């Protein structure tokens, strides 16, 4: 802090003459060319103090790393990459200032601290914007980086504001600014109440940040507000934990659901299941890559396109594996374990040879990025869609199994192969299709998991044990069991995690599963009676 103060003084001294007379921000912006981080911070303060809204694009460009200075004359421009060089744009007027080669300009360095300063400054500057959305985000920006300097601006904006929602947000922003200003105790007391009503982690942070410096008479109010928010937050945390558990559970469900068919229904100990998930993820990667190269506009649709592709690719691979290897091994479940483990090694190494061993980038479409709040909870879009998605697959599969002719054939074949075949069911086809279906579903799961996990040749390995645990815990051959097992293991894990830590939590879950299997050797929902023994 002290250093910053010194550099500020130094700056003010060195730029004393221009900075006082300045209402034109352009020279200030040009000074950024040679400023170090501390100097730049001071300059940004001065730029904001001009109150000139024309600087907003320049600040935005600075924050995005698009601000450059020309080496020949040290003038600062907004640069837009164009071909081999840059289109230069005047930082204040927005007029085109010609072009420059790549090595003729230098990017002005920016770091997190400056970005924070810019965010706050831009918040203040755009509070009066005619665009409602901009005003709202400006109020948000002020709210997130409280600063006494913004107080006058917020109040001025408040006076003119008519939109109810924006006004409410500005009230909160004002309260935040008031707390860090030197306003009267009463005004601050009001501000504390406003922030308390706002609630949430951010409010907690704001109140916490002033607790050291605030007037002693306000201390009780402040502490009461903090503990009120905290106790409310605790309730939300419980809800949040359940959500996290369901979300983890849905990932487990996704990973396990294909296995519930190949292992649960067909009895194949399919160790290559994880690799099917991986193949699905790689299919998604390839689809995205093609879209990026040939039709970037479709990017938000990439997942929707990738799903059927992943299903078909992995389904086809599954079909080949069943016809080529597994069909010779029916009735020898433990040997399917060996053979499919071999398959998994080969698939892994194949993918490694083709795509290399490193992670591949699979992007999130915009509708899967970010989060939205529900009360004190943060729900991320990707998790939410994965929950929706896994349940959709689950019920679709359930429908296929229970309500279609194919599902009936499949169940008939797995229960009594000979009988089914003598009834005219083409058992080899049903076997191959069922394995392909299980693999295809694993592939879809891979497409979804590519959104939250690494896409590397090892992807499958990290899911295989968990998947088996889920299917076994739920009861082999019972789809509902798989669902319940996945969700309950997810929630259990997430409630253990904060208490025991992630590592111990995972160990405990494994031990609990082992113990549970002792109690119910055939899982949660086991078939009873004589049929099982046969």
């Amino acid at each position, binding site marked *: 802090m002290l250093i910053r103060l010194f550099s500020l003084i130094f700056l003010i001294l060195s730029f004393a003459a221009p900075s006082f007379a300045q209402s034109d921000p352009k020279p200030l912006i040009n000074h950024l060319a040679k400023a170090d981080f501390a100097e730049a911070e001071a300059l940004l303060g001065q730029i904001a103090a001009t109150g000139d809204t024309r600087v907003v694009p320049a600040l935005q460009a600075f924050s995005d790393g698009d601000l450059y200075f020309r080496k020949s004359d040290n003038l600062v421009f907004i640069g837009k990459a164009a071909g081999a060089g840059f289109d230069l744009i005047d930082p204040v007027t927005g007029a085109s200032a010609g072009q420059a080669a790549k090595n003729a300009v230098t990017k002005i360095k920016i770091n997190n601290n400056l970005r924070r300063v810019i965010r706050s400054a831009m918040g203040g500057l755009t509070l009066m914007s005619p665009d409602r959305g901009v005003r709202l985000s400006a109020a948000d920006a002020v709210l997130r980086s409280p600063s006494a300097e913004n107080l006058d601006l917020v109040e001025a904006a408040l006076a003119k504001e008519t939109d109810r929602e924006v006004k409410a947000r500005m009230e909160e922003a004002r309260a935040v600014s008031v707390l860090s200003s030197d306003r009267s105790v009463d005004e601050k007391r009001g501000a504390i109440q406003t922030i308390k009503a706002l609630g949430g982690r951010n409010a907690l942070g704001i109140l916490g940040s002033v607790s050291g410096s605030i007037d002693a008479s306000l201390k009780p109010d402040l502490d009461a507000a903090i503990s009120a928010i905290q106790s409310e937050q605790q309730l939300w945390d419980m809800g949040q934990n359940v959500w996290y558990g369901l979300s983890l559970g849905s990932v487990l469900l996704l990973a396990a659901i294909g296995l519930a068919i190949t292992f649960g229904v067909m009895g194949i100990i399919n160790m290559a299941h994880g690799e099917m998930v991986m193949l699905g993820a790689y299919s998604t990667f390839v689809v995205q890559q093609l879209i990026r190269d040939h039709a970037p506009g479709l990017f938000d649709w990439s997942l929707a396109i990738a799903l059927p592709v992943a299903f078909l690719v992995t389904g086809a691979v599954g079909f080949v594996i069943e016809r080529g290897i597994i069909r010779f091994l029916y009735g020898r479940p433990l040997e399917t374990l060996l053979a499919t483990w071999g398959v998994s090694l080969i698939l892994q190494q194949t993918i490694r040879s083709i795509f290399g061993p490193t992670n591949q980038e699979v992007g999130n479409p915009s509708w899967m990025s970010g989060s939205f709040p529900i009360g004190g909870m943060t729900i991320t879009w990707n998790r939410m869609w994965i929950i929706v998605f896994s349940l959709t697959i689950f019920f679709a599969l359930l429908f296929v199994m229970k309500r279609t002719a194919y599902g009936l054939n499949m169940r008939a074949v797995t229960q009594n192969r000979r009988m089914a075949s003598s009834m005219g069911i083409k058992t080899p086809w049903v076997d191959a299709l069922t394995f392909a279906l299980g693999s295809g579903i694993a592939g879809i799961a891979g497409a979804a998991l590519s959104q939250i996990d690494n896409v590397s040749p090892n992807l499958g390995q990290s899911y295989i044990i968990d998947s088996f645990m889920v299917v076994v815990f739920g009861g082999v051959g019972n789809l509902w069991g798989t669902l319940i097992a996945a969700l309950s293991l997810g929630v259990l894990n997430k409630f253990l995690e904060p208490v025991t830590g992630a590592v111990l939590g995972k160990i405990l879950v494994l031990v609990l599963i082992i113990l549970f299997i002792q109690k119910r050797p055939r899982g949660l929902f086991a*078939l*009873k*009676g*004589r049929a099982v023994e046969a």
Partner: protein
Amino acid sequence: MNTIAETRTKSLLYLENVSVAFDGFKAINSLSFVVEPGELRAIIGPNGAGKTTMMDIITGKTRPDSGTVLFEDSIDLTKKDEADIAQLGIGRKFQKPTVFESHTVWDNLELALNRDRGVFGTLFYRLTAEDKTRIEEILETVRLTHRKDEYAANLSHGQKQWLEIGMLLAQEPKLLLVDEPVAGMTDAETVETAILLKEIAKTRSVVVVEHDMGFIRDLGVKVTCLAEGSVLAEGSIDFVSSDPKVIENYLGR
């Protein structure tokens, strides 16, 4: 009819009001059933009547939901597991012949002999002259002497059934439960088997479950007919087969 108290005092096996359900389906429904020492008893009944489940309950494989199962009037079989019950002297032959296919006929019988069955007893077991004679006797009884060194896998279906019966004999049980011993046998084998069972029943109680009415007639013993998990009729084969309920439920179909 005897009163319950009287029956209890002389019964070898005593079931009263036994019920068991699988996922809501009542496989056995308040079944009561008594076997006396030295008795040879036949059980008939349609598929799903609960015959095999009843055997499961007696041998400890399935636990009844309710009811009493006593052996020799005093031992509560519902508290014991298969090994205990086998050691008490109840032998069981399965519907499908179950022998150790990768062992020789001789080894199959040696394993079945009623000797120390503990880990260390078997680890340090040596074949004594007495055991040898006993095995040879049984081989004669079940007519397998000439195949004693063969792998059980290589026996014909009927021979496997006999080997299994031989193993039960080696076990020296007081009560023998035999599940469909002649299924899949030729007529000649069936006749031989009936003779064999009657011979065995001279020294112990035998309960035979069978569909083959001819075979049961050959046995000429008391018959119990089960349906839907409880006793439909009990008595001589003629008495039972003339019972209208039995005809409707079983024979008539």
